[in-house]
């Protein structure tokens, strides 16, 4: 559908009728878009962490006895970190549009001039 018309909606001197719209801010395009709602992530590496803690409980928190579990935990943590980096670099799917952060950077470089100069 095309953009709804703005003709005769605002309270202006030349407008004889009652105003339809009473905006509290000027109707000018801002140089930023709103952020997306943050996706609900879940905690990673819970199983490795619980295995490691069970091992600690049995061996009185000595690290030498739990080497294998600790190493698994570290591997899981680094894999999760790598996955997170990949997701943030790719721009989370995109599907035609840029993510809000990149859009804001682009708009910063080419802003909408609301002034004449």
């Amino acid at each position, binding site marked *: 559908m095309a953009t709804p018309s703005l003709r005769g909606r605002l309270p202006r001197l030349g407008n004889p009728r009652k105003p339809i719209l009473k905006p509290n801010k000027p109707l000018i395009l801002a140089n930023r878009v709103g952020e997306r709602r943050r996706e609900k992530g879940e*905690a*990673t590496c819970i199983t490795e962490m619980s295995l490691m803690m069970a091992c*600690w409980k049995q061996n009185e928190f000595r690290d030498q006895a739990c080497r294998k579990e600790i190493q698994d935990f570290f591997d899981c943590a680094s894999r999760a970190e790598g996955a997170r980096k990949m997701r943030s670099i790719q721009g989370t799917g995109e599907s035609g549009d840029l993510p809000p952060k990149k859009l804001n950077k682009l708009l910063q470089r080419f802003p909408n001039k609301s002034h004449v100069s």
Partner: protein
Amino acid sequence: MAAPAVKAARGWSVLALGLRRAVPRLPGLTQVRWSRYGPEYRDPQIDKEYYRKALAELTEEEKYEQELRKTQLIKAAPAAKTSSVFEDPVISKFTNMMMKGGNRVLARSLMTQTLEAVKRKQFEKYHAASAEEQAAIERNPYTIFHQALKNCEPVIGLMPILRGGHFYQVPVPLPDRRRRFLAMKWMITECREKKHRRMLMPEKLSHELLEAFHNQGPVIKKKHDMHKMAEANRALAHYRWW
């Protein structure tokens, strides 16, 4: 190295190729801790082995990297870094953390005295021990230092996360550099605070390093306390979202 705090007005006086031009900032805000190098400057390669590799051994990427470095601007190497065989990045980092007021000369001398004290103590033990025990005593102060810091590194950390108006200590996996930093920070704080007024830092630090090497002592206890807190709060791990 340029003084860290620079007023925006002074930036206009030196405009050379590659040096950062002063961007007009908001009035009342001063830029601190900035570098005079522009983004096109690359970090220097201190490591001699990088240049000693024979041309045939290099992969395509490494050859490209080396050719690229010939044409690009490179920052000056900091005075604290050398390309000698005795250079140790862990010791450098520890010395920087011990440094107060920019007095790296003093911090470096304390570090060398610490390593010397460690070596002396180990040699005394070595000469006093019997033949079987002598094989088990480690005398190289650098291995003792590295092993002690590795023993002090926490495996898991705690992070305050706001949920329902309260802050909960949630167990969180730490990256490697954070763990190394915590180990060094705990060691230095422990040695600064819990020592007798007349005792010198090298003596206390060497004692703590030797204890940490044998998995005893207050720094290891602090690490275990952190682990115990994390274990007690393991149910809160679901408050993490990463």
